[in-house]
């Protein structure tokens, strides 16, 4: 499975029609230790660039955007009790939400790992 990236520092990994979304290690470092993570309800329709979740550090709240259009299909409930999981493993155990994407091909218009790194 290929991971794609956004300019707003999300990553998305597609498995068939369902994708997993989180924030990049770079974003996590910038935000600092998280104290709260919450996604919009399952079933919420999102367009590419819509706020789908929020992560909060002590000082600030930051929206996490849907990289492509789709329907939210799950939240990493482990983060409710352990928001620091995002910082510890941002692109693995610290994933934030899942979504059914409207058009799987949409992800190919996002950034590749190499393109993201060169930002």
């Amino acid at each position, binding site marked *: 499975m290929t991971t794609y990236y956004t300019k707003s520092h999300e990553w998305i990994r597609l498995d068939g029609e369902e994708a997993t979304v989180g924030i990049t290690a770079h974003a996590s470092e910038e935000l600092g*230790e998280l104290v709260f993570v919450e996604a919009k309800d399952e079933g919420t329709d999102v367009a590419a660039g819509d706020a789908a979740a929020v992560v909060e550090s*002590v000082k600030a709240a930051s929206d996490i955007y849907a990289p492509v259009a789709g329907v939210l299909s799950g939240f990493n409930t482990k983060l409710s009790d352990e928001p620091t999981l995002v910082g510890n493993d941002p692109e693995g155990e610290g994933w934030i939400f899942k979504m059914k994407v409207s058009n799987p091909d949409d992800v190919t218009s996002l950034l590749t790992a190499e393109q993201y790194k060169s930002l």
Partner: protein
Amino acid sequence: MTDSLQRTPLHALNLELGAKMVPFAGYEMPLQYPAGLMAEHLHTRSKAGLFDVSHMGQIRISARSGDVRDAALALESLIPADYAGLAKGRQRYGFLTNDAAGILDDLMVANMGDDLFVVVNASCKEQDAGLIEAALSNRCVVTRQFDRALMALQGPQAQEALAPLCRAAVDMRFMDVIETELAGVPVTLSRSGYTGEDGYEIGCAAADAETVARALLAQPQVLPIGLGARDSLRLEAGLCLYGNDIDTTTTPIEASLAWAIQKARREGGSREGGYPGAEIVLRQAREGVSRKRVGLMAEGRAPVRAGAKLFADAEGQKEIGVVTSGAFGPTVQAPVAMGYVATDYAGNDTALFAELRGKFVPVHIRAMPFVAPGFKR
């Protein structure tokens, strides 16, 4: 960052320490160091943290008569605190008011024996110095010392960290102020701060700032702490941030700061009133106000932040206040906030609701500070 931003005397050291610098009140200031906000906050509560707060304004006021009491009486024409009754070597909180009893700035004033030593907020320092000069210049000489450095050493191990460098620090009590030497450098040292912990604030010449900072950072208890943790520490301590929790639209009584107006300046006191907006403050103290600044804690873990509206009901029908500061409290391990609510809802433990991303989160009015103070009285 633009060239128009000013730098503190500790700028080079801040960069060397790996600080993330941000613009604040016209200065390039350290938001956090590599340890990060959370670790810095907790370190300050358990050991000792060093803060660069050189952006704040230091002002000296001496009376033309030579008697510091005359300077104190003159300053009382702008501030509703008892400074004429402030003993030599002691410091006291206060605020400048306008004719509408709004708060122009909050500050610390110390009686240094020969003159007054005043510390004001960075964003207000030009305004404050101008105001004080205009009102006092016939009776006093007002000296801006905006080029001086100011550091804060805060935390339960602050005394232990400072003692090897400055023996005199050990015998000071909360709100004492002395002129002394620290690591061989002349400093103005107060036992006070903005974190709710025991600690000191250290004023010195810009050229000596790095010597002092390096000597303190060499102590095993001390880590550098940024403005991010300074904000969460002061919020847990229930202390106001000028511009957020108090400003020209809030009066001292609405802001629950009546404690900072000593008996001599209250109704029936020997120097009752006599400052801008005094009639309003005296009336509000007598008759009450329609809104009050209170502490708030939200249920769950989601921080309720500045600007969040407060409601009496879970449906968001009856708006009764607003949050002015809010964050996740690293020591409390819960969301903490302060804000203004209609007086009918200002009682401790009153259940309210804060609007958060379109939902209404249960919050309760709670007594401040949210953490037990560590002052050495």
